[in-house]
């Protein structure tokens, strides 16, 4: 039972990282300035590497090899939040998603650095150091673009509005919340969401951006239970395209 709970936690985190890493990597060669191509590529590399580390933990708990699990499933076997599979859109949406997700992820790994499940705590202590720079990057750009020109302000506010309910879907609760908290493995999605709101609010204030009114909040749920938008299956097929050319081969 405890292993099942840990697997559930690991799967959603690993899939979040794999899918956002994939989306970030799509900016390679297409960013608004060269420096941003490079930045998104660095973050993509970190995230894919972090997801690999978590798939490795899953492998140690009896799941298949990281390459097999990551590259050979169908969309209806993925546990990522729907937010992360949405297409990149323009830089405004990509940047806003980067900010909202990375702050949540950094806080999640900070909480996990003290997890009673030591293999995960060990990974978390390393990952949170990398995420510090991702959040630094996001904060810098959100603050800059939120308040620079009228166009950039409108674009960033629109991106925030469009992202909001999807971002709330990051904190979709799983079946093992209580058990994970009691065992000291993970404090829980509700606690994480609370910290997340406290952290993003001052940054958005500084960027002159407004969080949508609480009465309009409708979290986009389902991702954790493998319900996805139409955007995930093509992404997964693309990811496994070369593998499928000859599944018996070493690549």
């Amino acid at each position, binding site marked *: 039972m405890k292993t099942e709970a840990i697997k559930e936690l690991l799967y959603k985190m690993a899939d979040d990282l794999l899918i956002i890493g994939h989306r970030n990597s799509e900016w390679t060669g297409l960013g608004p300035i060269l420096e941003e191509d490079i930045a998104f590529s660095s973050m993509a590399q970190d995230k894919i590497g972090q997801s690999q580390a978590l798939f490795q933990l899953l492998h140690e708990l009896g799941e298949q090899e990281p390459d097999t699990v990551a590259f050979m499933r169908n969309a209806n076997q993925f546990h990522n939040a729907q937010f992360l599979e949405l297409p990149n859109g*323009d830089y405004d949406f990509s940047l806003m998603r980067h900010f909202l997700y990375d702050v949540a992820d950094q806080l999640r790994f900070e909480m996990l650095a003290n997890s009673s499940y030591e293999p995960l705590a060990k990974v978390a202590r390393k990952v949170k150091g990398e995420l510090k720079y991702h959040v630094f990057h996001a904060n810098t750009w959100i603050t*800059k673009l939120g308040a620079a020109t009228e166009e950039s302000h409108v674009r960033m506010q629109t991106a925030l509005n469009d992202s909001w309910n999807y971002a709330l879907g990051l904190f979709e609760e799983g079946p093992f919340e209580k058990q994970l908290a009691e065992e000291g493995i993970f404090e829980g999605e509700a606690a994480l969401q609370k910290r997340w709101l406290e952290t993003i609010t001052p940054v958005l204030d500084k960027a002159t951006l407004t969080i949508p009114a609480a009465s309009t909040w409708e979290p986009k749920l389902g991702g954790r239970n493998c319900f996805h938008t139409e955007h995930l299956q093509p992404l997964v097929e693309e990811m496994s395209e070369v593998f499928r050319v000859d599944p018996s081969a070493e690549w």
Partner: protein
Amino acid sequence: MYGNAYIDPNEKANGILAGEDPIKLKEFENRIARGEKIEPKDWMPKEYRKQLIRMIEQHAHSEIIGALPEGTWITRAPGFRRKMALMAKVQDEVGHAQLLYSAAETLGKSREDMTNDLIIGKSKYSNVFNYPAFTWADACIIAWLIDAGAIINQVANAKGSYGPYCRALDRICTEESFHLKYGHDNVVTLATGTPIQRKMVQEALTRWWPPIMHFFGPSDKISQHSEILMRWKVKMASNDDMRQQFLNMYVPKIWDLGLVLPDPNLKLNEETKKWDYTEPDWDEFKRVINGGGPCNAERLAVRRMAEERGRWVRKALLNKSEQYVTPLA
């Protein structure tokens, strides 16, 4: 990665020193002959500046355009190891563009002007990137052999006369040497893999051989007025010499893998100690470099779209009234 600067053979070679101060010119040439580097604020002939801008700019454009055919394989790379390595490689190439644009800017042309000249089709970039990377194996052949060719060119140019370009090239060559290993490892995996993988890599090699032979530029027989550029150490080796060096280093390695090169005349001439080969189709080269290749329109359209979609971001960065934010470093 980059081949050799393309010089339009129809460009007039006469009168390029017209109006230059003969004393300053003599001193300039003496410095180069002594092996000194020319730095941004130093005196230099107009033609030297012009040729260097053109060359460094072409090189920078080649790096960002070159990121496109390989970049499309990042999202499809088979497995964590290949995906991470390819992301890092393509990121390096974009980083090279950044280094090179800044080297060219020291000569007085802004990155924005260079980008504009690229997307309106005025500036050239390496011709090889006007060909598509149909399969994963194409991306592997590019990473091995195009990067190998680029290293030959760049190691030579790193000994040139313009300081900022040489220093950028030193850094670039270090990274390219890892790309070469990455590409070689991939090609070896495919060439020693399953029948499907072997077929895939052979087909990619066959497709890429003509562009690879074009990579170092037209034959010395038809490439003119490079004498003064070689004296000024702008151009460090002739196109044919670099092509020979490439064949010498890589044909045996390709044959070792049991792969076939699509040129029945390719062999090492025991008398001359040089490689004989079928003369590449230079009309095809000219047609492609002037916009008629399979991907020219697509490559520029992608760059244009990226520029267009990113305009609001660059505009916002230039806004003087922006709030103070913590510096990045």
